[in-house]
């Protein structure tokens, strides 16, 4: 399954409280993702909480969008990505 970077913008800031409510919200996202065969791998959040960079596995960009729609999450950009490791080329070159 391809891997995608999903960029999201939250102009008012994304707040996920570390409470049961926050936990419920996160699990809701996971459940919604499952209906589209989408897996949320991990996210990076800017310090001001207005932007997130989320790594996802999924069958297509459309599935990522549908899953976001179910969880009411914005989608600003989807890019297909692969892993580039700093030591990938060690031993491969001359």
């Amino acid at each position, binding site marked *: 399954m391809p891997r995608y970077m999903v960029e999201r*913008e939250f102009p008012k800031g994304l707040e996920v409280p570390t409470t049961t409510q926050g936990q419920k919200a996160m699990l809701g996202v996971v459940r919604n993702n499952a209906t589209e065969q989408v897996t949320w791998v991990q996210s990076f959040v800017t310090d001001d909480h207005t932007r997130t960079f989320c790594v996802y596995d999924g069958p297509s*960009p459309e599935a990522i*969008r549908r899953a976001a729609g179910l969880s009411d999450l*914005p989608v600003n950009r989807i890019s*297909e990505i692969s892993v580039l490791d700093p030591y990938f080329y060690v031993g491969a070159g001359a």
Partner: protein
Amino acid sequence: MLLEREGLLESLGQRLKDAVEGKGSLTLVGGEAGAGKTSLVRAFVDSLDESTLVIQGACDPLSTPRPLSPLHDFAADPHSGLAGLIGDDRAPMEMFEGVLDRLTRTIRPVVVIVEDIHWADDGTLDFLRFVGRRIENTKSIVVCTYRDDEVGPDHPLRSVLGQLIPLRSTDRLVVPPLTLAAVTKLASNYVFDPRELLRLTDGNPFFVTEILASGEGLPDSVQAAVISRVAQLDERPRRVVEGVSVAPRSVEIRHAAAIVGGTLADIDAALAAGVLIGDGHTIRFRHELARSAVEDSLPPARRLSLHLRMLGILEEEQDPDPARLAHHAIRAGRADLIVEYAPQAGDVAVRSGSRREAVAFYRAALDHAKELGADQASDVRVKLGAELRLLDEPEEAETELRLAIQHFRESGQIEALADTLGQLQGALWNLRRFDEGWRAMDEAIAILRPEGPSETLGMTLYRMAHHHMLSRHAGPAFTHIDEARQVAEEIDSEELDWLVLLMTGCINIVIGDTDEGIRLLQESVKRADAMKEPRLLAIGLGMLGSGAGEARRYAAAIPALERGIEQGLATDADYSVAYNRSWQARIALEQGRWDDAVGYADLVDRTTLQREGIAYITAMSALGRVRVRRGDPGGLPLLQQMTDLARDHELQHGWNAICGRAEYHWLARTSQPGLDELAPGYQRALDTDSEWARGEIGFWMWRLGSIDGPPQGAAEPFALQMSGKWEAAANLWREIECPYEVAMALADGPEKAKLEALAIFDSLDARPMADRLRRQLRDMGADSIPRGPTKKTLANPGGLTNRQLEVLRLVVEGLNNEQIADELYLSKKTVEHHVSAIYSKLGVDSRTQAVNAATEVGAVPK
């Protein structure tokens, strides 16, 4: 003794219980030959009481199976109530619907058994697909057995399994090999070591029992076990066994005696030995493995003579089945009999939709072309050619058709010659040798004209017009259709008259007289309705949907597509469903309903097997363009792939993909690669009369800087924009209801128009255009550029689609489903479908609640 099958019997019993409660199902019982599939099914049937009706049928191991053989078995059972319904003279769909009706409208649950579907003919495969897709709403179960180890990737059953297995109502069971415990139990009275027996037989129950019965050491194959068992019989009963082995099914006892000149006592002896089993009237082998083992062991001369005798006996019967006669004639190697029965069997197969079987029978007949005689051989070749084309083997079709053409030409058979030239054109079209095809058609017309008006002349003219229409050459299309109209009037043919109406509509759309074209196509749909001709109706709906769709006349196109899909689903016309859906995807793309476009494309992707066909190309091109317009990954490679697939098709199937690529490169500011495909497409567009192809392809040529203004005859909104009249273009696009194009036109205007465009792009999630416009506005020094979409601003209330919103508003106005259907030109069924989707999205279950919820979510003003 049935061992270790309790779990499987329980599963079948549970399915039946579910069926009684209204949830029917189809169960596929797989297992290798001799695994005990039939024994399992028998044990299940024996466990049922009078409250269940059992209908049984089987597929034959004939070299070429009898078309729809299980259905004929159903009909032969007087309890089935299907006797009057099944016949070689009936249309397959009519028979399928009859059986389904029987399974639906029943007080007693029905258990339908279809054995050995790995031998099923194409017609029976169609039947299984038809019933399997609809069984859920019946009170019945269908149980099919098949040898799962014989169904490889190219086996015809494979695609049917692929379509049925994902369904909720399909269940799979596998009959596993026996365990050591079971083998030990079976061998308890014998000297064999159970471990050795298990190793040798892999737990195959039939093999185990054959070895135990033969009692002679351990043979190395099941065939050897059978032969050794038969060899132990006295000569006369053995002769009976050998005689019965040439009949792939049961044989009447009197026939069995006649084949080998044996007596009833001999038959009793054969039965007593356990090789054969009987039911009082007929006898047969205990298993097909045993039968084929015995038949294969016969010396050739003896086998031939037994088949010939069997044939003689069948010929005496009333209404013998030609497939079986042909089978024995072929096995007996008698050319005179093959040429008599094989063509008949082929004709029956054609009527049953069993194409591979028809081809096999016709080929068997043509193996003896000399005995067949030149006239009949040519006749068979024409029929064979037609079936080969449908099986997508155009090269072989061409060979057969050309041989027939040569004979018809030499013997001066005008009508047959012209007809066959028409067929040849079809094969050449499949082979992408278009020009040769035109020449064949021209020749046919030239031959027929001097003979005066005829059905063949009219149809040939119509097809010529059709092909010119497809390649968007209006002039020759009109000339041919006008001549066809005269012929239709003179010979008074209702169908030809209808086809002329249809084609005139299509050609009008091509030349841009859209109103008249749509009016004629709507008229043709109405007339097909009145004529009660589902085949013509399907053609009319498809033409109206795609023709009006190409001209961006959505109000006319959408209802036609929806109705076409509904009709296609009811008749298993899978291709027609996929074609109509692919146009729904294209229209949804153009209307800015991108989620819908993706949904339709997904459906086509998941259901179409022809992954090089027009429907697939159309749907995937729409998906690719959605990705490009959203700035999502994966758009360009998909469009590239579709451009490659579409290269051999007419321009209209490829133009979306090439325009999508051009759009991608324009957005990415890499103009050159976009032009590579676009420029040749533009030349093709100029060579046709299609204003929308000229318009859109021309538009992207203009965007990429290759032309300065609109080409002659480009569709108006595109032409306006290319002439710099962005405002007029935007207004026209707004009327047509293409929001992305509205915004594209506004984006060419000054700041205020650009801001308006930006709002539309943002609402569509069209990021690349929105980014581009923001940059331009910043460069222009514009202030107050909106930040961008924070969430979907234009999403419909309640997450409803535009269509659902439309239906909901009429519900609020108090219309019932039938009135809504009339209002929106939809069928009642489609409206019901929309209404139930609306209920589930709004979380309500009545009309009153829906009305209240509609106000709450803001679907209608308070």
